[in-house]
């Protein structure tokens, strides 16, 4: 039966070509659209994770309540011991202590007097350890526009736009001025090693990056860190695994009201990420659903037209004594076969396009210049397991439903009227 239907589909191109093209294109676009949404949001999540949230984050309870203000006075103490413990207990996670802080950068004139000042967000990360992965997370080698990477704790990277605004070059000195962990004045001299541009207005507006040891020195935070970020070694955020690890760590902490006890939270629990993730997932699902519905309507219509076009054929087959049920079933079988062929070719085509954009990417830097979101300049698709089946739903069902509806007319045909119809 299937072989017979397949022969009919292949030989009668009027019957199959248009639906096949429509299904293939529709399925390919569905797959590509889904991979695009996953990719763009995935890139944004990756950037947020690398710069701010990590996949997991350990900090004090007090810091967790006010982390948007970068409160170094609420930092974790004994951070090296805690990092070692975390590494031993959770080997699947790469742990990175960091300090995020705010303050002022003061650029001196030749007499050492204040020439210019500007507020900055500071990042103290492990820049200098031989095995550090932090420069890669900040994409520093690629983001470097002038100068070079810091070679010691007295050197810093400035964001390029900030450096340009104050006419600062690599090699120029500056003084960071802020508050230490205990609230005293923090003064620390640095030299600009290089300037970087991240492609995100939020960061490029005014930030500087120094080594963790320099941050600890400048802010009087010996063996302390604002936060310890954890990253899955796979590079991808696994919400369930993250929640499991978080529950395990937090339950191991002594109960009580010590506001400086460490607490772990997942990326999803941070800074409105849950809402953002839910929102983007919902938007993504709605977009795919709308696309599926639109394509279903087109294919349904194609099925209806096909059914009407074959009105005469069904009449002859009925006149020759073929049962109505058999004709109807063969019609549905044809639709399923066309849907299957179209879905397979469409999925392959969609995956091919998605793979190309995943590897090459699309530069949207110019369009995102004024954006305040942490979005990378080059966005890429991300192929996931869902992409292998998501196109099959509209591909198979829409054509089948369209033919099933139009095929109902077969049962309304009156055998006595067939010859009159055929003569006409």
């Amino acid at each position, binding site marked *: 039966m299937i072989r017979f239907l397949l022969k009919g589909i292949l030989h009668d191109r009027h019957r199959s070509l248009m639906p096949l093209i429509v299904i293939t294109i529709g399925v390919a676009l569905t797959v590509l659209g889904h991979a695009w949404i996953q990719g763009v949001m995935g890139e944004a999540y990756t950037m947020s994770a690398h710069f701010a949230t990590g996949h997991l984050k350990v900090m004090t309870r007090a810091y967790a309540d006010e982390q948007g203000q970068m409160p170094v*006075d609420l930092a974790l103490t004994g951070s090296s011991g805690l990092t070692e413990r975390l590494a031993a207990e959770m080997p699947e996670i790469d742990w990175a202590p960091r300090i995020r802080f705010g303050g002022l950068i003061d650029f001196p004139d030749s007499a050492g007097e204040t020439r210019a000042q500007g507020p900055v967000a500071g990042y103290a990360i492990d820049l200098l350890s031989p095995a550090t992965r932090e420069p890669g997370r900040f994409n520093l080698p690629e983001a470097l526009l002038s100068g070079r990477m810091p070679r010691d704790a007295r050197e810093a990277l400035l964001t390029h736009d900030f450096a340009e605004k104050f006419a600062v070059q690599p090699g120029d000195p500056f*003084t960071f001025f802020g508050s230490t962990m205990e609230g005293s004045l923090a003064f620390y001299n640095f030299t600009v090693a290089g300037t970087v541009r991240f492609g995100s207005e939020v960061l490029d507006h005014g930030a500087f990056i120094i080594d963790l040891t320099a941050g600890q020195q400048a802010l009087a935070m010996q063996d302390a860190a604002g936060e310890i970020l954890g990253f899955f070694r796979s590079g991808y955020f696994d919400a369930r695994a993250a929640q499991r690890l978080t529950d395990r760590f937090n339950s191991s902490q002594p109960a009580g009201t010590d506001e400086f006890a460490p607490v772990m939270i997942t990326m999803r629990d941070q800074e409105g990420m849950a809402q953002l993730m839910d929102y983007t997932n919902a938007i993504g699902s709605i977009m795919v659903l709308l696309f599926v519905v639109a394509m279903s309507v087109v294919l349904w219509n194609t099925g209806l037209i096909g059914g009407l076009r074959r009105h005469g054929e069904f009449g002859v087959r009925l006149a020759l004594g073929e049962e109505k049920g058999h004709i109807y079933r063969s019609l549905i079988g044809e639709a399923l076969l066309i849907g299957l062929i179209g879905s397979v070719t469409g999925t392959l085509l969609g995956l091919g396009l998605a793979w190309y954009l995943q590897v090459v990417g699309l530069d949207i830097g110019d369009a995102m210049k004024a954006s305040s979101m942490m979005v990378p300049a080059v966005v890429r698709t991300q192929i996931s397991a869902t992409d292998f089946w998501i196109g099959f739903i509209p591909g198979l069902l829409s054509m089948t439903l369209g033919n099933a509806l139009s095929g109902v007319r077969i049962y309304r045909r009156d055998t006595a009227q067939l010859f009159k119809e055929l003569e006409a």
Partner: protein
Amino acid sequence: MKCTILCLILVLAAGSVPAQTAGEIIRKIDDNLSARNRVTESAMTIHGRRGSRTLTAKSYAEGTRKAFTEYLSPAAERGTKMLKLEGQLWIYSPGTDRTVQISGHLLRQSVMGSDLSYEDMMDDRKLAEIYEPSIAGEEELDGRPVWILELTARVSDAAYPRQKLWVDRERFVPLRQELYARSGKLLKTALLSDLQRVGGRWYPMQVLYKDMLKQGKGTEFRTTQIAFDQAIPEWIFTKAALKQ
């Protein structure tokens, strides 16, 4: 008999307080708290969320426009100096040998993690110059009869557009101060105590400041030594003095 009557008259005279207008009260407060110049040594204890620490400092002030402070302890702060000159503020850090000017929104930042801002330190003008006072009531505070004064700023650059003072009716020193934002939100409180007679004026030797927007138990500011109308060399109020 004559002596008894005289004593009675003196006691009655001392116990009675003549009617005062709000303007007269804040002028008398200014007379107590402001001076042509003064040299003070102080200990500031900051009660933070992680613990308390005490900083000692020596300050010189001339009128309301010039002030110089050098931190004496602890070791981390020793040698840090601040100079206020004609509405501008500089800080010198011996660790970096840099002098940094503080301006703009930074003036609202906390000084050394305390409940005081640079703006609080800067704005040393007399109350009568900045505020329009009115008497809101009378009551007792810690056993002392006080006036409750409502102060509304009549200049646009006041750090606090509105203040409420509980003023000792006999000594003309505020015992409690509430500082409000334009919106009416309470920003800071100050409890002034240990009033002592210094150079013919009443002066609060201890003040407990509390920034209501910060957690913690506040900042105790204790004046350990104070001398008014001293001969302060002019070079103290120069930027060159910061590096000496």
